[in-house]
């Protein structure tokens, strides 16, 4: 009858070197090289070494199980990918919705380009004035130099000089 007291079991488990040589090793337990040294499992639950040379028969339920497992694994990967895409889409949707809500929260705030508009109007007016001066005045030194109607020329100078003097 083996000693099943706790100190005895602990000694057998963790102080194996003391019992290694005295322990009967009838099994082909591959875990014998481990720290347990085959002391825990005394029964030969593994196949004998004589059968190792035989080809592994990977048929039947085992093969089908492996195939199903691999298929289910691929499906799981696809499922993860789909889940990633779906979660990405959901995040994008949430961002768009949040942005839209923020725009709506702006409420009565008017987005305008007043400074740029004023600047554009100012430039337009200045250009328009310049063009208007060129078109409307029609009084150039060359045109006056070629004038033959001296009465009109006198009147033209008189009117403009009077306008200048009136402005002072």
């Amino acid at each position, binding site marked *: 009858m083996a000693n099943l007291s706790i100190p005895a079991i602990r000694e057998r488990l963790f102080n194996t070197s003391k019992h290694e040589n005295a322990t009967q090793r009838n099994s082909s337990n591959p875990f014998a090289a481990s720290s347990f040294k085959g002391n825990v499992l005394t029964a030969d639950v593994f196949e004998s070494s004589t059968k190792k040379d035989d080809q592994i028969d990977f048929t039947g339920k085992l093969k089908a199980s492996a195939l199903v497992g691999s298929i289910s694994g691929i499906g799981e990967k696809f499922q993860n990918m789909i889940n990633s895409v779906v979660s990405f889409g959901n995040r994008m949707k949430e961002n768009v919705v949040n942005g839209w809500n923020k725009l709506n929260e702006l409420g009565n705030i008017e987005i305008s380009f007043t400074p740029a508009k004023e600047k554009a109007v100012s430039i337009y007016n200045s250009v328009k004035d310049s063009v208007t*001066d060129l078109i409307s*005045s029609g*009084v*150039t*030194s*060359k*045109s*006056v*130099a*070629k*004038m*033959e109607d*001296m009465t009109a*020329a*006198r009147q*033209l*100078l*008189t009117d*403009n*000089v009077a*306008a*200048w*003097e009136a*402005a*002072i």
Partner: protein
Amino acid sequence: MTDKKIVKNVTNIIEGLGMNENPESIAILEDVGTNSKVDAIREMTSRALVKKNVHDSLKVVITNKGKGINDMSTVVAMSTINELLSLNDKSEAIKILEDTVNMHSDEEVRDNARSVKALMALS
């Protein structure tokens, strides 16, 4: 503040009359331009008359009291003198200056003509 358009018009008209070969242009410049109360207009008119460099136009700015080199405005007088000194052909201007020094009735006009003649001889 004078309207830029009016200033530009007056400037163009005076310059145009200065280039106009019609003798009437000189009379227009003398009657309207040199009698203006605006110094700038008188100055432009005097310079235009000098640039014509003909007897009648030079006579206006040299022999008339209160016009051209005899203007009460120093700016107008000096501008007219400067334009006379800038002429390439000064012969007609010197001839009128000599006649003015010798025959003009007003002493101040004679003195001014003498001074300008001396400047033109040195230039």
